[in-house]
């Protein structure tokens, strides 16, 4: 499972973030608390993503497969970073 969690790390963080935001929106409705919690969840997920990014950047590249998995993991983390910020905008801008 370590290989898969390495490969899918960014996407997992992204999924956790949007499900967290849905839970926040459903429980706290459109309130300042919901906006605050969205900010907290976003910062936590971005931090988590940054930590994974650091690990992926330093990952060993012994075979072409390792290199490929690292590339996909890094791209996934990059997409996740942008997506997490994008997903939080409805709460943070309005």
């Amino acid at each position, binding site marked *: 499972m370590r*290989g*898969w969690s390495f*490969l*899918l790390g960014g*996407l*997992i963080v*992204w*999924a956790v973030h*949007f*499900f967290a*935001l*849905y839970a*926040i*929106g*459903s*429980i706290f*409705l*459109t309130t300042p608390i*919901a*906006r605050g919690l*969205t900010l907290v969840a976003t910062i936590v997920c971005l931090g988590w993503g940054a930590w994974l990014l650091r690990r992926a950047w330093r990952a060993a590249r*012994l*075979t*072409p*497969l*390792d290199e*490929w*998995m690292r*590339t*996909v993991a890094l*791209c*996934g983390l990059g*997409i996740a970073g942008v*997506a997490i910020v*994008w*997903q939080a*905008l*409805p*709460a943070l801008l*309005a």
Partner: protein
Amino acid sequence: MTSETGFDPALYDRFPTQQERPPEELEELKRIWCAPKGWRLLTAVNNNYVGFFYVATAFLFFLLAGILALVMRVQLSLPLQGILPQETYNQFFTMHGTVMMFLFAVPMVEAIGVLLLPQMLAARDLPFPRLSAYAFWAYFVGGLCFFASIFVGLAPDGGWFMYPPYTSTAYSPGINADFWLLGIGFIEISAIAGAIEIIVGVLRTRAPGMTLDKMPIYAWAMLVFGVMIIVGFPSVILGTLLLELERAFNWPFFDPTRGGDALLWQHLFWFFGHPEVYIIFLPASGLVSMMVASLARTPLVGHSLIVLAFLATGFISFGVWSHHMFTTGMPNLSVGFFSAASMAVSVPAGIQVFSWIATLAAGKLRFNAPTLFVLGGLITFVIGGLTGVMVAMVPFDWQVHDSYFIVAHLHYVLIGGMVFPVFAAFYYWTPMTSSRPLSERLGKWAFWLMFMGMQVTFWPMHIAGFMGMPRRVYTYLPGRDWEIVNLISTFGAFLLAAGVLVFLVDLARNFRFTTDNDAGNVYGGGSLEWLPTGLYSTRSIPVVKSREPLWNDPQLAEDVEEGRYFLPGSATGLRETIITSPIRAEPQYLQIMPGPSVWPFLGAVFTAGFFLLLTVQAYFVSFASAVLAVACILRWLWDTDRPVHDETVDVGAGIHLPTYVAGPRSHGWWAMIILLVVVGMMFIMALFSFLYLYGVQPRFWAAPAGLADLVAILPAYGLAAGLAWLSRFMLAREKTERWTPGVLYLCAAAALAAGTGIDLWSWHASGLRPDASGQGATVYALLSLGAVLAGIALLMAVYLAARNSRGMIVRPRNNSLDLCVLWLVYAAGQGAITALVTRLVGAI
């Protein structure tokens, strides 16, 4: 070099071998893998046959649903037409949508997977051939009976998403809705069976050396597709069960006057329903990604990014279901979140589209039939995608919701994203399964008629939607300016149908099914399905060193055909394939595969019989059919999990592999884990339903059953899990006589049943009844799920005892026991969570 399993990759250098193979080896391989003849062909399990039957049946449903669409278009061509009465029209549009989505689109992409994947991965077959056969026959029998309901006026009429309260007993008192609920729930089970097969097949039966980075892009698409099915489909299965329970037993899940909520159905349906679109699109996208590389004669541009796009689509598609519910009055912030996510999903789709364009631009394009269908699909899908971004914007969606604009949008996405790619695939891969390729001339005619027909039919529907025409109306009044656009759409529909007709003529003239005399690699593909094959797949299983092995090693086909790679013959005299590790595809063991059998066929027929007879309320015959189905499935399983005499065998070049492996390395273990994910997702969605109703209808919440009862319930579940786990360890002990694994497992199953029984009794004693409120309905639904798991565990205990009595539970490890233990431990965990959550919510 690093290794995933301890296998030394340097051993690959022994291939291709140089010695001559014994001449009788190939004959034996043919004898072992030959398919039954005549009527016994119904018992065939080879992927070539099952895949072909599957594709043909799915295409039949495409034609049937298309005919329904044509009749509807004639009805709508002019105002106040009287061709279809209102009630019949309702049945037609419901059946059109349902059949296209559930009986054509998903089965078709699954069918193509069954047909292509073993060849593409150079496996002898998918790992559970009898499961494939069962999934197909269940779908075939169930699908045809379901469709036949329209001939007797009993077809469902509530639309393909069957919203309550319209589909509850008050407004749909007949059995039409039951046909949908039981029929579709059952067909989804067949889809899940196929998905398990595909996931384990892609992860565990790839040719040695086919590491994740060298895996064909189509296999990636099918892997994500399979995972999406096992995560998404349980939600609709649960939804259909709950709605059927409400209709049959008055359990008010969706009745807001008694603590239910109609919107709960929409959440359950769309958590499946939106990913369904990507479940259909991703495999087609995988096919396109394979084809564009061959058609442009250049490697796919952005292979890694497309893999990432597939994975990202798989994740994000589960986060956008509520964009179908923008008009239901959700909290503003939630609407904003879902809108943002819905727009974000266009990014991975865009990556794929740009990658295909770049590949086509980088290569030397040939404008043959598959190329035209690919390009037509690309253009159509992009238009559908753009209107998708439009409806992701909430104010716009409010304006066009439930209008013909949505009908246009979804047809652009589905026809562009799936139908055109599938037709391209028909032209591209027919030479693999037919002794003659399809005609280029007729193919181009078919394409242009279909492409023009598609645009002429659906483009005006955007306009009709803007002009306010609602979807699902059976007619309209004159003088609203809808006549012209509808007439044009009807003309286009017949143009589209003419294209399909030309394709049928092409099939009749040129398609000649074969398993060993195919027309060959007409379009110059570089992947392994174009190696010479028979019913045994490839003669030997090659070592894969690149993504397009046939392009990079022109000698490969000859070496494979001469048996110079892995498994050049049958090592055990039985059907077998090599199981490899999931990431680096290192050989791990030789799987002994089951051959033709009548039991999957009969099991499927009786399973279909159970669901369909239940629909017409023939309860006794229905339950008799269920008992027979279980008996057939157990009989089919009885033949499996039998170790062979030789513990290890030579699989080529002096490399020895074990013939029996148990535990997490075995493919059966993986299948059981995936099955438990399916069951777990049903449980999670049931818990979601419980918490959702608590959130929206707290005033209906009664005091839960006593926490004190947990003192009996939790230890019972703990004992069940502990005893089951202990039985695994006791199997390895030679001297065990009294506390044998069989006895321990039976005690564990009894403890599990006791835990569920006490929980049920406790709730009953609390005075809450399932028909009293949404709380009662969801609590008893959760308990019923637990009771079903416990019932299956008891059945497993009896099965294990029977196997044990015949000496088939071999020491020190046995797969049958392992899988039953996994089931029981999971069931105990689910029971404990049910007992805790149902008591704690509302009590604190």
